[in-house]
């Protein structure tokens, strides 16, 4: 299983859409794909999989927030993920199609979702003595691998610099797709994230995270040479990351 996290410092760069598109393409290649929505404060991945209406909405009962809450109350994670995962219809029935599963943030249209989310103490999870947060998310990753046997785990990380975002960008993935819009705010923010990724130690035996910068919302019909210039500038910026010392 290859784990790929999609991260953006700011919202509105088309991150969830990219996760959904990559999932659909990979399924089109016959791959088994498990997608997970870690953008708990502004969840939306299920919309990109068209699970917001009809049967889909009814299907979504629980998700990541409920999983964490079950851990909080029970002291250990649930044994089976099946209550927290919904299958996604893959479009092309004729093609040899793979599979997509989604672990949504939760039933976001219910009041209980936001109540449960508010009750999660990120501080306790990540900064208390023997903080259980990182082991919990590693356990979740292992459960996904064992119970669904996906070829790819795609993580829709939340924006900014947060605890759960940190887990998604530093502990879990082999590859980190960093989505950027070409403005100073985005680029500076992404630079901070890349710096923080460098600071977080990997688990023993874990290879280094491969960072894949992606510029989004580039107009299809930009002026000739414009796009090349923008890409070159961002590339130069990204290359400068090499010179950041620990």
């Amino acid at each position: 299983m290859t784990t790929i996290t999609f991260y953006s410092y700011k919202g509105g760069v088309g991150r969830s859409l990219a996760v959904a598109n990559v999932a659909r393409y990979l399924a089109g290649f016959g791959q088994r794909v498990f997608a997970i929505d870690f953008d708990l404060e502004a969840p939306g991945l299920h919309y990109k999989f068209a699970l917001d209406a009809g049967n889909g909405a009814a299907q979504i009962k629980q998700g990541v927030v409920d999983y964490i809450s079950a851990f909080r109350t029970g002291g250990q994670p649930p044994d089976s993920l099946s209550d927290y995962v919904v299958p996604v219809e893959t479009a092309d029935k004729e093609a040899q199609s793979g599979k997509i599963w989604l672990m949504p943030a939760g039933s976001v249209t219910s009041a209980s979702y936001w109540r449960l989310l508010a009750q999660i103490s990120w501080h306790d999870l990540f900064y208390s003595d023997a903080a259980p947060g990182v082991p919990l998310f590693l356990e979740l990753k292992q459960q996904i691998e064992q119970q669904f046997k996906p070829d790819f785990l795609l993580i829709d990380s939340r924006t900014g610099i947060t605890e759960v975002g940190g887990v998604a960008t530093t502990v879990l993935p082999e590859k980190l797709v960093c989505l950027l819009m070409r403005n100073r705010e985005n680029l500076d923010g992404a630079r901070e994230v890349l710096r923080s990724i460098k600071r977080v130690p990997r688990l023993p035996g874990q290879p280094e995270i491969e960072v894949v910068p992606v510029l989004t919302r580039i107009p299809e019909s930009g002026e000739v040479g414009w796009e090349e210039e923008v890409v070159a500038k961002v590339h130069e910026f990204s290359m400068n990351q090499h010179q950041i010392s620990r």
Partner: protein
Amino acid sequence: MTLNVDQVFVLHSAAEPTVEMPGAESPLLRDYLQLFTRLVPREVYEPHLARMRQPARPERFDVNPIPHGFHSLTLHLIVDGAAAYIEFLKNAFGAVEIFRSSRRSGKVMDALLKIGDSMLMLADDFNREFGLLPVARGNLPFHINLYVADADATFARAVAAGAEVTMPIGDQTWGDRYGHVRDPFGFNWVIATRKENLTPEQMQKRVGKALEGG
């Protein structure tokens, strides 16, 4: 410690707001395939490239690159006396005349017939006007017409495989992206993509103008 950032990828804004489905040609397909070169092993996507680059679905575009009613391959016969031959085909095989464009002399520049579920193209010999070797001077009396979604790509591929360019690919007055090659075995191929739908009247007018230099 390096972050291994050696390439910046691009997703164009045409991505939004819809989720693209595999199987349909997408302006973003190129972007994602580029991205996949870094994200997933080559053997994951490579076997699917040909299928994913299938022609655009007609409901998404006004002009079907393979015109309605055509199969990929259509025979284009070059006949001395094409008008008379059309009458023969009607009598013998129930051919239905779809379109005909003639010169003032009565010579058929371009005719399209339907026999059963297949199209048949035919014309008098205008090879010379197209810069091709006339039949009387030893050329074969037919072309194999191949309609594809991306004529330029197919053309380039055929040439790379050893076909000889006999008429460079270009935008033609009748609305096709169109060019000729002769394959190493001596057969003539037309490689074309429909770009613009013209009425028979428009086509007759434009083709006539082009061929008669008017």
